[in-house]
């Protein structure tokens, strides 16, 4: 049985690359497949070049990129369906939270239920599902770690708000661990990764600074609210 030489295998591999097969796992499949076709023809007495051109004719070189597309399509089909469902739930969650907070400010009916469902959905459904989807699309270890830290911080802070609102114990633990992960892990990883991959370094830093400013604002407004509450209690006494 014919066995292709290194340079012959390489030339078939180049063919795959020039025809847009970039997915490594599929490259292995197709490389072996075409090599088998060529070897089969060589066993029947043909030369390599002739065997290769016959095989590519049978195969249809233009079909190579289509195979990759079909593979990606099948692999992401489920994920895309999930994205749609999660998208709808996320929009509802955001709406619940915003409406709940406005109603709460005006002491209107229904505020409690909306805030409770909003933050519960965010912590238990939306953030975990979004993390899963994002991780599926990422291959870089640093990026994956940043993603996990970001979503875990989001989950902890949502739970903190929920606990605070429900007057459950454990708020401080959730709140400060959430903030610590956000500032101590997520932001440095996010900044480092962005700084490294972004062409425009200033823009990359600006993004991180804006997130930091947001975090400080939330932290400060919570502190101010606490302060005001303590002052009110003191003056009431």
């Amino acid at each position, binding site marked *: 049985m014919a*066995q*292709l*030489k*290194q340079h*012959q*295998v390489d030339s078939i591999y180049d063919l795959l690359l020039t025809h847009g097969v970039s997915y490594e*796992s*599929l490259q*292995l*499949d*197709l*490389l*072996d*497949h075409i*090599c*088998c*076709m060529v070897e089969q023809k060589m066993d029947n007495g043909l030369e390599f070049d002739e065997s290769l051109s016959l095989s590519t004719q049978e*195969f249809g070189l233009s*079909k190579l990129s*289509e*195979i990759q597309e*079909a*593979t990606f*399509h*099948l*692999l992401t089909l489920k994920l895309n369906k999930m994205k749609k469902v999660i998208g709808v739930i996320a929009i509802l969650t955001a709406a619940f939270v915003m409406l709940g907070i406005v109603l709460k400010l005006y002491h209107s009916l229904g505020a409690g239920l909306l805030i409770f469902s909003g933050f519960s959905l965010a912590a238990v459904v939306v953030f975990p599902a979004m993390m899963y989807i994002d991780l599926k699309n990422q291959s870089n270890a640093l990026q994956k770690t940043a993603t996990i830290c970001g979503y875990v911080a989001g989950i902890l802070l949502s739970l903190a708000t929920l606990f605070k609102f429900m007057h459950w114990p454990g708020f401080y633990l959730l709140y400060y661990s959430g903030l610590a992960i956000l500032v101590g892990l997520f932001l440095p990883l996010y900044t480092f990764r962005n700084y490294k991959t972004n062409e425009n370094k200033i823009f990359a830093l600006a993004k991180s600074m804006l997130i930091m400013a947001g975090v400080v604002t939330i932290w400060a407004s919570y502190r101010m609210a606490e302060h005001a509450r303590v002052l009110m209690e003191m003056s009431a006494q």
Partner: protein
Amino acid sequence: MYSKEIIKGTLKPIILKLLQENNRMYGYEITQAVKDLTADKIKITEGALYPLLHKLEAEGVVFTEKESIGKRVRKYYALTPSGKEKTQELIEEFVDFMATMKHIFEPNLQPGYGTA
């Protein structure tokens, strides 16, 4: 050669059945086995085979083993334990389906229907 319309939907049971019988197979081997078993009547195209194999792998029905063959790497596909169960179920369903189709397409086998 059967039309695409008819073959559609049979591809997965065929591949899983072959993997059940042969323990592990590589892509080219699968296409050749189908060609031989069906006397060239069913040809599995690469465009249908590999996307499906990758999907089955992502779903945990099959797993792969890499082996060096000459100057290249060959990927063997084999059923996972849960894949074996699913395959058995699918094959049973498919056999039942074929029996049902027979009732419809070979009406002579159904005595008395429509003649009373």
